[in-house]
């Protein structure tokens, strides 16, 4: 746009036309009727009025915020979440709010109270979740970039399933104020984009200490793009979870892709980590416990409908969370899980003494078919197994597309994990991979 190759009007025309064509994908819960108008006023701002899709659990003043839950169907926030405010200050415009698993309780977007979103890469398949709408919005060109949230996999997994870039920042890097809370000790808002460069740009504008979120870090926000083009020469990369039996088929497809890093001068070797199957238990308990507390505020008195409108998945999570915190069971479940969480912390600390970055598959396999979640109480937790360890410890992670099946048009994603606060390093590696391979259709355009 700055080089006058395309105008803001043309961008909006394209996006609007794609939105009209993709209605049956059920990507958006609501569109912003004043988007174009707002965009025309952004002038020379960093994000120049570009249309950004925002997951519908971010409060946006004047625009419904439903968390894809019937209970909040008519809820219109009287204030912006901090990230929505920062996006606006940088000149980004909310084109619409995207669909998610209701209350972000899921990994498929199939448990949205407003119906599933379809995967733009293959309409018989799910986009993943819980930020499925945001990932689908990017993959379908119905926005220039999107925002999602990750509690354990909810940015990286849908990004993997939709073949786009998803960046989970370090916990505490981006403010959670005004975002419908799920698990307060792991929730991390972050960008879902077409390219690594875009993710770094969006992250730059939404990061930072926020007085309204006392878990945000006082550390200065670095320039995430500064070393982006430096390459990976000399970096030591550890491949995790290659001994996990369920991953055999997907690993056969991943391992050749990792040779790219070696050709670029990095070293890659498999290394054993604490079994990710244990992270499922930690996450299941901690998340449900925190959810039971966070969703207690939804009583239908100050906003929303009463608790009889809570969907099936939300009820179960709240109740199991209540159980794991209750007298006689809290030590056995909640405290025990938080101790295992410490074991994962210690394990990552040890791994990062030896390696600069750690990689793994983002998802055990390709996007699942519509209907896959039916009757599966633990669908999400099992699908997110490879991402739960880094999420519960607060580490940053970046998903980039690393393989596409020609027959199904579905993708595999590579999960690149960095030590706490080292988003720039994973951005550096992700960019190098993106530029050296052809899996990202937008990378060199």
């Amino acid at each position, binding site marked *: 746009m700055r080089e006058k190759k395309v105008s803001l009007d043309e961008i909006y025309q394209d996006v609007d036309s794609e939105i009209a064509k993709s209605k049956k994908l059920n990507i958006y819960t609501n569109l912003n009727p004043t988007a174009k108008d707002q965009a025309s006023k952004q002038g020379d701002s960093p994000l120049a009025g570009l249309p950004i899709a925002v997951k519908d659990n971010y409060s946006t003043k004047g625009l419904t915020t439903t968390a894809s839950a019937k209970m909040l169907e*008519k*809820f*219109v926030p*009287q*204030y912006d979440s901090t990230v929505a405010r920062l996006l606006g200050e940088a000149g980004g415009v909310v084109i619409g709010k995207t669909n998610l698993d209701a209350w972000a309780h899921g990994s498929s977007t199939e448990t949205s109270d407003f119906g599933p979103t379809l995967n733009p890469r293959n309409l018989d398949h799910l986009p993943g979740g819980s930020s499925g709408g945001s990932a689908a919005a990017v993959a379908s060109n119905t926005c220039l970039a999107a925002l999602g949230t990750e509690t354990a996999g909810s940015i990286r997994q849908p990004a993997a399933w939709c073949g786009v870039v998803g960046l989970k920042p370090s*916990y*505490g890097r981006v403010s959670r104020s005004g975002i419908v809370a799920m698990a307060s*000790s792991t929730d991390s808002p972050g960008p879902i984009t077409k390219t690594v460069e875009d993710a770094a740009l969006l992250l730059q504008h939404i990061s930072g200490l926020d*007085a309204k979120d*006392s*878990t945000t*870090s*006082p550390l200065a926000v670095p320039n995430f793009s500064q070393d982006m083009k430096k390459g990976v020469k000399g970096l030591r990369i550890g491949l995790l979870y290659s001994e996990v039996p369920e991953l055999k088929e997907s690993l056969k497809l991943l391992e050749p892709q990792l040779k790219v890093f070696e050709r670029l001068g990095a070293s890659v070797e498999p290394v054993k980590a604490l079994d990710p*199957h*244990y992270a*499922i*238990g*930690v996450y*299941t*308990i901690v998340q449900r416990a925190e959810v*039971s507390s966070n969703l*207690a505020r939804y*009583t*239908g*008195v*100050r*906003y*929303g*409908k*009463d*608790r*009889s409108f*809570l969907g099936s998945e939300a*009820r*179960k999570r*709240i*109740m*199991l*969370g*209540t*159980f794991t915190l*209750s007298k006689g069971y809290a030590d056995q479940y909640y*405290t*025990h*899980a*938080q*101790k*295992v*969480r*410490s*074991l994962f*912390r210690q394990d990552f600390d040890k791994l990062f003494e030896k390696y600069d970055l750690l990689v793994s598959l983002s998802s055990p396999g390709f996007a699942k078919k519509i209907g896959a979640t039916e009757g599966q*109480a*633990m669908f999400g*937790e*099992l699908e997110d197994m490879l991402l739960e360890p880094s999420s519960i*410890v*607060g580490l940053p992670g970046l998903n980039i597309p690393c393989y596409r099946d020609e027959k199904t048009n579905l993708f595999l994603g590579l999960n690149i994990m960095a030590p*706490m606060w080292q988003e720039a390093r994973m951005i550096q590696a992700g960019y190098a991979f993106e530029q050296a391979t052809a899996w990202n259709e937008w990378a060199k355009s």
Partner: protein
Amino acid sequence: MKNFSPTQVKHIATLANIPLKIGEEQGIAQDFDQTLSVITNLNELDVSKTEPTHQVTGLENILREDIALSEESFTQKEALANASHTNNGYFVVPRIIDKDE
């Protein structure tokens, strides 16, 4: 290994303030059993000498002055804007005190 009974589920629902639909407790009990069966592996790990991690930031006591910030505060209209029942500038809440008390 826990086996949830529908009675237990009803008790948890009361604690969690969730109004169950008739017969819902059966299905939920089965779901809970399914969930717990996936996470029993946590008991395989020895955490006898491990401290719990409740938060990963290491931050403590992030406080601010206890003063009202007018620019952050809602007007009465804004505060009531999403309520389903209001009366004369008040939120209407469910009865919590019995008529005889």
